């Protein structure tokens, strides 16, 4: 009888729907935990990732297999990114009113954030490959991966830095900004989107639509600027 139990378990684990089903189930548990406790540290994304990684290690499933199994979810991420144009449009009047503050913050703040990340990593003695990977960490992962590769870093490690930055930003960003009395939805949104990209924007949307709109704006502008200016800057320096 033992053998058949094993066969049944294998059939379930290897079923193409297993990893998606597991992800959906774990995510709902994480959302429920967050809603019930209201602890900021229990960000659904972080909790689901932690549980899922443990389960994957336990079941001896590699990341490549997981990635393949949840392809459907990654596929929908594209249209979801496009959908961020809607909250952005709904706040377009406010964006127009404060166009100059937005542009100045984008250029000065974006430049400062990028240089600071690289400078700190250099101060702490990280190797050159890490420095080049660190530079685009504040932008959405597809851009960060392409840019890191282009300027000599590692694309997959860049995605990891992007994720860590995003998760930390989503966990503590809003509270951190409030602590420094930065309360306007525009300023909170720009900070979340420019530093913590898509994950920060998901968090900003939990606050309210206006914060989400400015976060989407900060994210997309920071991404486009980094994609265009960073390879140029690196080419000029070296």
């Amino acid at each position, binding site marked *: 009888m033992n053998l058949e139990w094993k066969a049944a378990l294998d059939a379930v684990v290897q079923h193409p729907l297993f990893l998606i089903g597991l*992800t959906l189930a774990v*995510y709902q548990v994480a959302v429920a935990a967050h809603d019930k406790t209201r602890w900021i540290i229990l960000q659904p994304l*972080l909790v*689901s*990732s932690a549980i*899922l*990684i443990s389960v994957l290690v336990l079941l001896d499933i590699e*990341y490549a297999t*997981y990635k393949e199994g949840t392809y459907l*979810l990654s596929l*929908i*991420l*594209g*249209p*979801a*990114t*496009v*959908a961020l*144009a*809607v*909250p*952005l*449009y709904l706040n377009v009047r406010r964006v127009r009113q*404060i166009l100059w503050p937005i542009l*100045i*913050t984008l250029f000065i*703040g974006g430049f*400062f*954030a990028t240089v600071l*990340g690289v400078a*700190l990593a250099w101060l*702490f*003695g*990280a*190797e050159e490959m*890490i420095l080049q990977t*660190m530079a685009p960490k504040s932008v*959405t*992962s*597809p851009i960060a991966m392409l840019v890191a590769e282009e300027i000599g870093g*590692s694309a*997959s*490690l860049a*995605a*990891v830095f992007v994720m860590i930055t995003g998760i*930390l930003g989503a966990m503590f960003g809003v509270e*951190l*900004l409030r602590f420094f009395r930065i309360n*306007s939805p*525009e*300023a909170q949104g*720009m900070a979340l989107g*420019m*530093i913590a990209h*898509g*994950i920060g924007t998901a968090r900003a949307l939990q606050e309210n639509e206006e914060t*989400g709109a400015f976060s989407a704006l900060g994210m*997309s502008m920071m*991404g486009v600027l980094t*994609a265009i200016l960073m390879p140029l800057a690196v080419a000029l320096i070296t």
Partner: protein
Amino acid sequence: MLLRGLSWLIGFQLLGTALNVLFFPVIPGPIIGLVLLFIYLLVRGNVSAPIDEAAASLLRYLPLLLVPPAIGVMAHVDDIQADFWAIAGSLVLSLVISMVVIGWLMQLLINRQARKKGEQ
């Protein structure tokens, strides 16, 4: 309704992919799609009900959609361990400092603009 909105979003993303290959190899298709949809909404002057519905449905599940890429951390445990303190230190410090600086700068500029408008 949901299907029609979803088709629009996918259409914009695919248009973005085409432009990515043709003109902007560093900017990913979805980001170009975002910009295109934004321009389309500006020209149109409002958000049609199908697009609004599809966008709201997708954005509600944005954190879920980000779970698979986040799991990618597990493939890089060794690289991170090698430079752990440099990486952790610079990630956390630069996150905290630049987030506060950006938020503060933005708030300062908005307040200054509001004050100027008030004086006029």
